[in-house]
């Protein structure tokens, strides 16, 4: 076919965003050489929240699996880090990977149970499962039962020599995990399977009639997301060096805040979780001294954004200005206009 039409992916804004992102990432990689100890801890936490939000967005925003129980896998990953290092004698880095594998494995029977439920029942089912996880780990006396346990100092020391080297390693792990999760989700969404997943996000009836196996796609997304969430959980508790059932399976810390981030940022977009994470941490760092008033302000922000911009901050901007930072969409260009402005 000889049509004067070309197909490209992404926009000039996306290319500029790519360059900007590369510069920012390089600066962040070098943070241990320019940032203070407290700043690095904060940045590490931001990365891990960004990863959690990106994963929850894939689950709820694309696969339509609105889980309020992902803390099950955060906590499970954290506990696996402790169990595999203390009892298995594994190096912490290996234990983190092991936590991911075990998290994915345990999510299979969990999915078998909760995938029978739909909509709100599914959401409640995930929460119930997370409570089952919490109560189960509280029974394991070898891991400190209900009061929890600390990571022994010799295991902490085995990571790297000296405190600053350990903190740098922990920082790089968090940054690496966030980048890896974002890259994985980006390449998934750009692929053929990603097209199927995006179709499911928009219309399940049409998706299934066009040959997309909805149950299987959702199941795969759930298992992969859960495994990666467990990796993030392991990293979170590697930073904290202490774990307890209440901290590990906190619905507030690992689900409510994450949902807040995704919803205000823009659910069902890759950019949304990034914007949401920045907004969340800006609010938290400026308002945390206010105590409960801080939570009320968070709630107020969520309500205002849901009323004014139901698709979140990014959804609002993207619709208004046709923005796209990640080159996911296809652009059909008629070559006449193409010659004048390659960026279109």
């Amino acid at each position, binding site marked *: 076919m000889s049509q004067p039409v070309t197909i490209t992916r992404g926009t000039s804004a996306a290319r500029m965003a790519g360059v900007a992102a590369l510069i920012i990432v390089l600066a962040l990689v070098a943070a241990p050489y320019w940032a203070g100890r407290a700043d690095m801890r904060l940045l590490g936490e931001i990365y891990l929240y960004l990863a959690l939000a990106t994963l929850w967005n894939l689950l709820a925003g694309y696969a339509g699996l609105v889980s309020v129980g992902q803390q099950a896998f955060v906590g499970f990953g954290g506990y696996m880090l402790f169990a595999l290092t203390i009892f298995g004698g594994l190096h912490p880095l290996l234990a983190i990977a092991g936590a991911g594998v075990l998290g994915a494995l345990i999510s299979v029977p969990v999915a078998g149970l909760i995938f029978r439920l739909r909509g709100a029942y599914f959401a409640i089912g995930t929460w119930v499962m997370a409570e089952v996880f919490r109560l189960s780990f509280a029974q394991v006396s070898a891991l400190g039962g209900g009061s929890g346990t600390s990571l022994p100092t010799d295991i902490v020391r085995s990571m790297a020599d000296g405190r600053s080297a350990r903190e740098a390693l922990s920082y790089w792990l968090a940054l690496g995990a966030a980048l890896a999760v974002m890259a994985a989700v980006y390449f998934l969404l750009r692929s053929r399977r990603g097209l*199927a997943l995006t179709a499911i996000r928009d*219309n399940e009836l*049409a998706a299934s009639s066009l040959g997309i196996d909805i149950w299987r796609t959702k199941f795969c997304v759930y298992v992969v997301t859960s495994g990666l969430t467990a990796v993030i959980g392991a990293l979170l508790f590697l930073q904290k060096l202490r774990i307890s059932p209440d901290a590990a399976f906190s619905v507030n810390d690992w689900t409510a805040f994450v949902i807040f981030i995704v919803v205000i940022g823009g659910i069902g977009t890759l950019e949304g979780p990034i914007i949401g994470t920045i907004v969340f941490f800006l609010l938290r760092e400026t308002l945390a001294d206010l105590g409960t008033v801080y939570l009320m302000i968070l709630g107020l922000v969520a309500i205002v954004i849901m009323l004014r911009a139901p698709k979140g901050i990014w959804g609002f901007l993207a619709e208004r200005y046709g923005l796209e930072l990640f080159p996911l969409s296809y652009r*059909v260009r008629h070559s006449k206009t193409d010659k004048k402005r390659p960026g279109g």
Partner: protein
Amino acid sequence: MGRGPVAALRGAMASILELEGLTKAFGAVTVADGLSYAVSEGEALGVLGPNGAGKTSMFNLVTGTLRPDAGTIRFRGQDITRVSAAQRGRSGIARSFQVPQPFTHMTVFENAMVAATQSAGLRGHAAEELCLEVLEQTELLAQANAPAGSLTLLSRKRLELTRALCARPQLLLLDEIAGGLTEAECQALIATIGDIRSRGISIIWIEHVVHALLSVVERLIVIDFGKMIADGEPHAIMESPQVQEIYLGIEADA
């Protein structure tokens, strides 16, 4: 006016789709009541019937969106009664929805790409080329980058047809795609569907715009209360007293 043993035999020889005693009820409402017919390879079959007669339900049964209470569906000789909707979509059955079901936040081109990659199983450039080709045929190329949710109803109907064609079907199910078109648009649609037919794709077309239907199909069935009440040559069917009775109001423009 049921089909005799000879017709049934002919159907079994080279039929792409065979329904046998297909039955489905929602409580007291029977949407399919022992439906049996066969569609030959390359045949264009028109379906008439009053609103609520069970025409769209019949499509839902064929595509697997609904499961029948009884009866069997065979596609290219294979029993697909228990096969999932997705698998039927991949094996060569495509449909357009009466109420358009676009992927609203994806562009028109991406909507087409879903069908080309998932249903037709094409990759990379082959998928993109097919989509461009079909979009040109259905006159949506100029709107290729528009989000499907921003389209007018008419364009959404075109998108339904586009997606179904990008699925590269062997059997195409069209559900009222001519409603609301101007006469010129209707003629263009008839030409498009004629072209699809000439490529050997079998078509089942549910349509209230009778003259559009009659200019394409070679056989007509009439469904009422989930039952097939007529089957045969289109003009003979249209003149039968049963159909005249049902279509007293609608038939005027045929």
